[in-house]
């Protein structure tokens, strides 16, 4: 989870996460104002060229592969708009979807998740003005990342224990013990956190 999804090196790797996020969000936002199918298609084509110039054919291929998740929805859009005979709109929406993913993935594929998290922690400093404790945010993020593999393993163990006792194996049956274990964890971890000094108050 924590290396570039593509382990290819690109020219955008060195650009800071902050800049890339701002670009990504602005570009994606602009997409929603474009109504013309030809303009939208051109944006799509331009993005393909950008992908190629950033990392060559390999990178372009990886980028296109990431679009796999959008295929079901694209099919719906295609059929729906063919049925309504609104090809213009259909094309705009389809390429808007694809372009949005391409823009977002350009950011994701060229940034280490580790760096993204560091950037969030760094900029959560400014949340002070909104009454949020930046130290708390920092710790919450660390705890979140650390908890995912632990909960995954626990769910697996619970299902294993379950299959030792019954022929039926369903996720639903373990949801109660899983949820209770999460609550018990909360008690222990918050105590361990306090044992090392706890969360610094906003004023510190």
């Amino acid at each position, binding site marked *: *989870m924590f290396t570039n999804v593509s382990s290819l090196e690109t020219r955008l790797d060195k650009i800071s996460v902050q800049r890339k996020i701002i670009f*990504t*969000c602005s570009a*994606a936002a602009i*997409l*929603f104002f474009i109504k013309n199918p030809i303009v939208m298609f051109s944006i799509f084509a331009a993005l393909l060229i950008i992908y190629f110039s950033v990392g060559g054919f390999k990178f372009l291929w990886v980028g296109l592969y990431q679009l796999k*998740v*959008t295929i*079901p*929805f*694209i099919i*719906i*859009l295609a059929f*729906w*708009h063919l049925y309504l005979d*609104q090809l213009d*709109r*259909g094309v705009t*929406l389809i390429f808007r*979807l694809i*372009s*949005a*993913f391409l*823009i*977002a*993935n350009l*950011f*994701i594929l060229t*940034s280490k*998740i580790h760096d*993204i998290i560091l950037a969030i922690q760094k900029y959560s400093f400014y949340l002070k003005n909104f009454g949020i*404790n930046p130290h*708390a945010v920092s*710790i*919450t*993020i660390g*705890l*979140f990342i650390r*908890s*995912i593999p632990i*909960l*995954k393993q626990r*769910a697996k163990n619970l299902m294993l224990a379950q299959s030792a006792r019954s022929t039926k194996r369903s*996720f639903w049956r373990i*949801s*109660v013990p*899983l*949820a*209770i274990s*999460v*609550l018990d*964890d*909360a*008690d222990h*971890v*918050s105590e361990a*956190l*306090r044992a090392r000094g*706890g*969360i610094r108050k906003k004023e510190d």
Partner: protein
Amino acid sequence: MIEKTSVLIALFAALIAVLGLVPAFPLASGVPITAQSLGVMLCGTVLGSKKGGLATLFFVILTLLGLPLLAGGRGGVGLLAGASAGFIIGFPMAAFITGWLMEKTSSVDIHISVSLSSIVGGIVVLYIPGLIGMMINAGMSLNAAIVAVAVYLPGDILKVILVTIVTSAIFKARPNSIFARS
């Protein structure tokens, strides 16, 4: 205690993420039936409005920033142009309202409290932005969007039942841990 709050938010957000790993029912419309909205409802019924809303918001922000947390390993702003866009944006509000209703019904029998809160918060409140998102991103009329989205209803009703079972079980085993009720 702020430590407890931070830990609960982190853990429940992680729970939503892990629930996304449960094998999903892929559906043709592009939004699979996943266990994730179950996690969202649980945030509301167990943690209450504030903590539950924050945990879910935390999850959504990290997902939109690119972490592959949405069921199917999806993430990034691209999701806002897709079929699940409205639901993703609606998650925090759904958790908040679910929690808020739980708090308002804390003197009622827990099964009723949870079912009511998760139906209103986890379905009604969630489907409104879900529909709007579908309409904008699929270019559908309201009626068409309703049809497209209706296919998730049975799954979500099952989730309401499950949330009721889980929350009541937690309430029995760890009554002080249902923060929505204390």
